[in-house]
């Protein structure tokens, strides 16, 4: 009798596991297929528009050659520069901000955090118009959009302190106190104790800051409007999919997508662990 129950449990488990495997396989296919398609179509040379099949009839590098001959190089370089600068400066600014708000109890801390919470409720797009005018007064639009975009994205990045503050909050405060009793200044506490412990969140911040600009679209488009040399990849490649260009540029877009996605994805997969840690911590802390 007992034996029978046991067997029943096991078969039940096996059935449910099999179902899950089937579901997971379907999910994986759904999630991967578009990317497989994009890669396959980037090698299709017999036509440049959208077609009703996936496997190219003729394979070739023509789309990548087109890419090389277009402004894509410039866009790619632009985006890369923005991403690098953002990774450096945004990381510094966000760490300053989040460390301070996690560790110091100064008089304006509460009001400051509430103030930023309220600021965050305004749609960021609202400020686009004026930021554009300010940048254009500074000569940082159109062809010079790159420094302009860096400036704007770095300047407001202090608002995104939540995730890393959540991480800093998990480092016990008594470590700071012990170090201060041991004779460290606040700066030494940060430099010698907290930063070595905060490696995961530093990497997370660098990673997200670096990845952000690759998908940055609206503001980049607004700032560089009409001047191809100021585009980033997102803005540039978007123009290939407009109704008048798509028939000519669709496969080139696919090739460009591959070139953009591959390095970022590899970098991301290497640092996946830290990303997961940051994302989880941030969501829990809210």
């Amino acid at each position: 009798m007992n034996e029978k129950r046991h067997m029943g449990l096991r078969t039940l488990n096996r059935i449910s596991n099999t179902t899950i495997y089937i579901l997971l396989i379907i999910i994986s296919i759904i999630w991967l297929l578009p990317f497989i398609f994009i890669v396959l179509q980037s090698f299709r040379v017999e036509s440049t528009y959208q077609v009703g099949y996936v496997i190219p009839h003729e394979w070739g590098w023509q789309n990548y050659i087109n890419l090389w001959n277009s402004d894509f190089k410039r866009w790619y370089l632009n985006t890369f520069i923005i991403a690098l600068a953002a990774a450096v400066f945004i990381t510094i600014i966000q760490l300053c901000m989040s460390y301070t708000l996690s560790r110091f109890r100064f008089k304006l801390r509460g009001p400051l955090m509430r103030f930023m919470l309220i600021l965050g409720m305004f749609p960021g797009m609202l400020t686009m118009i004026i930021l554009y005018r300010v940048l254009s007064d500074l000569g940082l639009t159109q062809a010079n959009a790159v420094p302009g975009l860096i400036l704007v994205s770095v300047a407001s990045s202090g608002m995104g302190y939540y995730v890393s503050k959540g991480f800093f909050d998990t480092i016990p405060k008594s470590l700071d106190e012990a170090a201060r009793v041991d004779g460290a200044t606040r700066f030494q506490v940060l430099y010698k104790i907290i930063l070595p412990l905060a490696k995961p969140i530093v990497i997370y911040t660098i990673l997200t800051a670096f990845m952000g600009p690759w998908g940055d679209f609206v503001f980049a488009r607004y700032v560089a409007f009409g001047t191809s040399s100021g585009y980033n990849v997102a803005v540039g490649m978007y123009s290939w999919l407009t109704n008048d260009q798509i028939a000519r540029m669709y496969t080139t877009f696919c090739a460009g997508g591959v070139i953009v996605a591959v390095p970022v994805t590899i970098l991301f997969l290497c640092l996946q662990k830290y990303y997961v840690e940051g994302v989880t911590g941030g969501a829990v802390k809210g």
Partner: protein
Amino acid sequence: MKHYSDLEFLRLSKGQRIGYKIGSFFYGIPRAIAGLFIKLWNLLKAAGLTVVREIQDICATFVKGDWKTKISFVIMGFGSLARGQALRGLLFLLFEVVFIGYMVVAGGHWLSLLPSLGKLGPTSEYNLVLDTYTTVYHDNSFKILLYGVLTIFFIIAFIYTWRVNVKQNKISEQILRSGKKLKGSKDDLRSMVDENFHATLLALPMTGIMVFTVMPIVFMVLVAFTNYDGAHNGFSNNLFTWVGLDNFNTLLSWSAGSGGGQSYSATFGEILVWTLIWAFLATFTNYFLGMGVAMMINKKGIRLKKMWRTILVMTVAIPQFISLLYVGKMFARNGLINLSLMNLGWIKEPLPFWEDPTWARISVIVINIWVGIPYLMLITTGILMNIPADLYESARIDGANAWQQYRKITLPYMLFITGPYLLTSFTGNMNNFNVIYLLTGGAPTNPAASGAAGSVGYTDLLITWLFKITTGAESQYYLASVVGIMVFVVVALISLVVYNVLPSIKNEEDYQ
């Protein structure tokens, strides 16, 4: 409304309990709002009292202070310099010199024009050299408003600094009177990496936020009270000027729009409703499906956990504009899906993924699930693994089946922990420009709403509408600004209500 004690509540039937909870929730809303106003009033009162106290303190400092202090009221930093605190003194003095210089050279000018936003627009004047009429530009409303706001910021900063300067003198006098030594410049520098390290760390980020977020928001909020648009750009054609609440009237009035279509308020209402539906569905479909996938991968006995996770995570890494644009085109009229299905002979006509309003809305939500699940899977995996295993063990001993375990343990735990995240995610989805804009651009167009600014479509959110207004032919900045303020109001209201009922904030310790 009748209030039940805990024991009375426990005797209610299930339906009554739910009714009671819902009742008391809605019953609590007016009180919460009243509480908010009371809080605001108290805040105002406190602010008023603080100002009075500060003024009293300033007067007292002047009356009781020595001559060094008294001179400091006019020449900032004098007291510090006279007492041997060179660095502080010089900084105060420098600030005062810069401020006065700025006000004389430019600030006064901008400030005087601020009430009118400029008197003289561009004029056509005879040019002797070129022997023709050319346009001569005069006032620039945009600059007047911008620099006017900046000047006001600067004045506030100056008043604050002046107050600090006065307070410094008072404190210095006290310290000297008690026979102690004042901190020298060297101590001041050292304290920047120690006692006042937080100020050092915050200086740069806060400057950035003030200049590139706060100032623009103040500016744009002010724009809502002007007639700034493409035809009144304040410089090369007409000046723009203050119009009071007219723009709010336009947006919220029921009269028909200029194009003969439906009124602005109807358009606004339609878009708002869709925005809320979208935010709700986008947030919760992703949340539950993402949690489901995470639970499948986490289940005991499932192998290759890492591989499944990596497959999904990979899609997080690929920049959204690529995946969204590509998938968007896949579902287009002549896109991969339609063409393939027609090649296979399954359909004769292309499916109207982006052409039919209902199809488009559903497609957007489904594709958003595709975009969002990996991310949610990541978030929930970590939390799921943190749920103490003994909770499940005890539930199993109590006789709970898998569904009951999920319903009674997993879900409450998850909702509790991710409550704040859900709220941010909801408001984030309300403003999810990328997904909508890159997939549909707001299409298909809503003909009834064509009277409103921008060509409004059935999948447009408030935020994409705002974008269209801004970049549209008429560039009705003032209207964009009003819409932006409305978005803020909606988001703030939702946050306020949710924050007041969210258990994670009310009973922070329950699950720790």
